[in-house]
């Protein structure tokens, strides 16, 4: 694992950990995050590491999208468009 990959992995972990705070408590986000990182701790092949990190970034974007959607839907319900024509 190169230094850049190591830094990427660490930054991703911190970012995902912070995101996990707002996740639905019934799903153990932090636990799953840790398990996945531990499962992949001994990877040697650089392309494989890149692929796993890309998967991690994908999870991060998915979680962000979920949060945005949850907030937007909630606000849309609370503040519906007033007109009935639209």
């Amino acid at each position, binding site marked *: 694992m190169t230094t850049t990959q190591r830094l990427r992995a660490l*930054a991703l972990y911190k*970012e995902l950990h912070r995101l996990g705070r707002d996740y639905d408590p019934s799903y153990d986000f932090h636990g799953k995050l840790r398990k996945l990182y531990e499962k992949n701790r001994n990877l040697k092949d650089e392309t494989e590491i890149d692929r796993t990190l890309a998967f991690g970034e994908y999870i991060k974007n998915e979680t962000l999208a979920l949060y945005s959607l949850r907030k*937007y839907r*909630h*606000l849309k319900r609370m503040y519906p*468009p007033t*007109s009935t*024509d639209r």
Partner: protein
Amino acid sequence: MRPSAVRLLNILVPVKRAVDYAVKIRVNPEQTGIDLNVKHSMNPFDEIAVEEAVRIRERLKDAVKSIKVVTIGPPKSSETLRTALAMGADSAIHVEIPESAPSPEPLGVAKALKAIIERQSEGVDVVIMGKQAIDDDAGQTGQMLAGLMGWAQATFASKVDVDAAQKVAHVTREIDGGLEELRCRLPLVVTTDLRLNEPRYASLPNIMKAKKKPLEKLTPADLGIDFTPRLETIKVTEPPKRVGGGKVENVDQLLAKLKEAGITARRA
């Protein structure tokens, strides 16, 4: 010949630390307000306002000189300012009021914002703020500020297009029955509606960088503003609990229940 200098825009974004959108609101035991011992975060409409300011800069590039965010609130409100700085604002102003003080009213906020605008040596061209706060739903501050300053206002904006060279903005507003397009001369107050944009997530590196951005602290006395409330809330109660529906066995029972409710048939 030197080309005439393009007027550089200064954008001010007032934000509010309000009760978080996901919190279930409860009336406090004294029945004078809501329980405030809950999670707070930036008012979602103000997030949209910060996002719009950042997007205006992304579109106009160097024509935007500065994006300042301001909040009026207890010490904890500086976290809200940090989030706004992490989203892309340049500097922040925190008008600090004591933790125990009541929440400022819209007129007080508007007067304070007027005082802050007048303090800015380079002036303010556009004020972008949320249309209302999700905890009090007053929806008055933007309009009051425009009135106090004698500025144009474009409220419930769902699209904002600023032309820095012409000192004009084209704003599409959401109104009952559809959309309204306005051409407004700067300086201008814009209040944001939900459908204006999708706020960005403040990533961890940006939050760290935001700690280094300038944050000016002021007191109400510095502005010469008195935030004493002019309204007294006498009582706050929950709406009556929704009574569950009941099932009826047959048409006769239905008619009996309708009669009970006072709905009777009428000859046409």
